[in-house]
C-alpha cells in the first residue's frame, strides 16, 4: 500500500504538470479530430510532436538519467519498425505461424509491437551486457560501431530482396492518432516513474559518479543494463508506431541520423531532469519544422550550431538554464 500511495503522490508533484498539460492538449486535438471539427493538419503536427517527445524520452532513460550517450539507440527503433512489418508480411500472412491473426490489422499491430519490443529488449540485454562495461566516449564509440554493423547487415538484406518494406493494410489517421497518444502516455508514465523512483536515484548517481555510486551500494551494472533495456523497448515502441503511420519502413529506419535527433533533443533540453527532454524535443521540433518551411538548406547548419552553443555556453540545457535563472520554477522542472 505504501509504495502505491507514494506513487499516487508522485503524480501530483509539480514536475508532472507540464506533461499533464501537454497530454491534455493532445487529447483535445484528438477529440476535435475524431469528431471532424478540425482537418488533418494540426493532428499531423501533433503526431510529429508526440513522436519527437517519445523518442527523446526513450533516449533520456539511458542518456539523460544514466549519463550514457548511445549513438546506437536507433537500432532499437529500427528493430521495432522492422518487426512490425515482418509480423504483417510474414508471421501473420496467410501461410505464417500467426496466420490466425491474418486480416485483423489492429491485433497484428499489437502483437507485432510487443514482439518488436521484446526483440529490442533481448538485443539490448545481450549487446548491453558487453558495451555497458565501457564508459563515456568508449561507450559512445562502441554504440556507433554497433549501429554501423546493423546498418550494413540490414542494407545487405535489403538489397537481397525486399518484399518486407510495406504494410499493405488500410489505416485510419484518426485511429493512428490515438495509437500515438496511447504510446505517448505510456512513454511519459514510464519515464516519470523511473525518474522519481529509487531506480531513478540510482541512475542519477551513476550519471554523476559511477564509482561513488557503486561504493554507495548501487548495483551499477545491473541498473545500467535495465535502463538500456527499458530505453530499447520504448524506442522499439516508437519505431513500430511510426512504421505503422508511414505504412512501412525505409532504409533510413536504421540511420544514425535518428540517434542524432534523439541525442540533440536531450542535449537541448538538458540532462538529468524529467522535463528537459520533453522541452528539448518541442524546441527541436519547432526548429526542424521552421527550417523545413523557411530554410530547408540550412537545417544541418542550424542544428550543428545549436548543439555547439548549448554544449559550450549552457551545458545544462534549457531546463537547467531555467532552473538556475528562476529558482521558483525548479519544482516544475524536476
Amino acid at each position: 500500500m505504501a509504495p502505491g500511495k507514494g506513487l499516487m503522490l508522485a503524480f501530483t508533484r509539480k514536475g508532472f504538470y507540464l506533461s499533464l498539460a501537454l497530454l491534455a492538449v493532445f487529447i483535445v486535438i484528438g477529440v476535435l479530430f475524431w469528431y471532424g471539427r478540425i482537418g488533418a493538419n494540426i493532428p499531423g503536427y501533433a503526431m510529429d510532436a508526440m513522436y519527437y517527445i517519445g523518442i527523446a524520452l526513450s533516449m533520456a532513460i539511458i542518456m539523460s538519467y544514466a549519463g550514457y550517450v548511445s549513438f546506437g539507440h536507433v537500432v532499437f527503433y529500427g528493430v521495432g519498425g522492422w518487426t512490425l512489418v515482418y509480423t504483417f508480411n510474414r508471421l501473420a500472412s496467410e501461410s505464417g505461424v500467426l496466420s490466425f491473426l491474418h486480416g485483423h490489422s489492429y491485433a497484428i499491430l499489437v502483437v507485432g509491437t510487443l514482439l518488436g519490443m521484446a526483440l529490442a529488449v533481448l538485443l539490448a540485454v545481450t549487446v548491453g551486457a558487453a558495451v555497458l562495461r565501457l564508459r563515456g566516449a568508449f561507450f559512445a564509440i562502441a554504440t556507433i560501431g554497433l549501429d554501423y554493423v546493423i546498418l550494413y547487415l540490414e542494407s545487405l538484406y535489403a538489397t537481397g530482396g525486399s518484399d518486407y518494406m510495406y504494410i499493405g493494410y488500410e489505416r485510419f489517421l484518426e485511429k493512428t492518432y490515438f495509437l500515438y497518444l496511447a504510446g505517448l502516455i505510456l512513454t511519459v508514465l514510464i519515464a516519470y516513474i523511473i525518474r522519481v523512483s529509487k531506480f531513478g536515484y540510482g541512475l542519477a548517481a551513476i550519471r554523476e559518479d559511477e564509482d561513488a555510486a557503486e561504493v554507495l551500494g548501487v548495483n551499477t551494472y545491473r541498473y545500467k543494463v535495465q535502463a538500456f533495456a527499458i530505453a530499447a523497448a520504448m524506442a522499439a515502441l516508437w519505431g513500430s508506431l511510426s512504421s505503422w503511420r508511414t505504412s512501412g519502413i525505409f532504409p533510413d529506419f536504421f540511420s544514425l541520423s535518428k540517434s542524432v535527433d534523439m541525442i540533440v533533443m536531450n542535449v537541448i533540453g538538458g540532462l538529468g531532469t524529467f522535463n528537459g527532454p520533453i522541452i528539448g524535443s518541442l524546441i527541436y521540433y519547432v526548429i526542424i519544422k521552421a527550417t523545413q518551411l523557411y530554410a530547408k538548406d540550412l537545417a544541418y547548419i542550424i542544428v550543428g550550431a545549436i548543439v555547439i552553443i548549448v554544449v559550450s555556453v549552457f551545458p545544462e540545457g534549457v531546463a537547467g538554464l531555467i532552473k538556475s535563472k528562476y529558482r521558483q520554477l525548479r519544482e516544475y522542472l524536476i
Partner: protein
Amino acid sequence: MAREILKVENITKRFGGLLALDHVSFYVNEGEILGLIGPNGAGKTTMFNVITGVYKPEEGRVYFKGRDITGMKPHSIARLGISRTHQIVKPFGDLTVLENTMIGALFGPRHDTITEDEAREIALSVLEFVGLRDKAEMPARLLNIQEKKRLELARALAQEPELLLLDEVLAGLNPSEVAKMIKLLRKVRDEKKITMIMIEHVMHAVMNLADRIVVLHFGRLIAQGTPEEVATNPEVVAAYLGDPEMALKFVKRLRR
C-alpha cells in the same frame, strides 16, 4: 568482551610490479576507532579499496562479522553495512545535498524495504546531525570543501552502516574546521555507536580519537597498538623520517 567486526588476513595487492600491500593483517573490534596511518604511498587507500571491494587482492581474505567478503562487488559490500568516504570527495554534483544523502539511505543495508519517504527522513536527520540541514536543497557542487566533506560523511551515515571507513576527512580543512570535524566524529562514535577506521594525516586528531592504530609503510604493516605504543615504536618513527613534517610531529608527540 569485544567482538571482532572486521578482520583482514594476509592481504597482498600488486599493481604491475609495485607491491601496494604485502601480507597485511589486522582486525577491528566493534565500537572502536582504528587509526590507519603511514607515509604517502603506504597503501592505506588501497587497503580501503580492498575492504570495500573496489580492488580484488591477489592473496588474503577480508572477513566482516565473520563472513568472508573477499571478491564481493562493492555494492554488495556496501549493503552489508560497510560505508566509506573518499579522500577526494565525490559528491553527485548536479543533485541536491538532500538527494545525495537520500541515495545513501536508499542503497544501504536496508535497500530492500526502505521507502523514499523514509529515506528522506533519514537523510534530513543525518543532515541535521552533520550541520548541513540548511543546505539541503542546494546542488552539491556549490558547497565549499568543508561542506563537501560533511556531505560525504552524511551520505555514508545515511546508510546506517556498522562500519565506517573514513579516508582523510580532515585533509584540506583549516584548524577550526578540523576541530569541528573531530567533534562531529566523536558524536558519531558516542551517539551512533558506529565502528570506524580512519586514514588520517592530522596526527593529533588520530592520536586523540583512535583506540588503536595500525601503521603501514610501503605496503607492510610495521606496527599496531595503542597510540602511545605506536608513537614510541622506533620503526614507526624511522618510517616517518622520510617525511620531515610528519617526523617532526612524531618527535613532538614523543617529547610530551
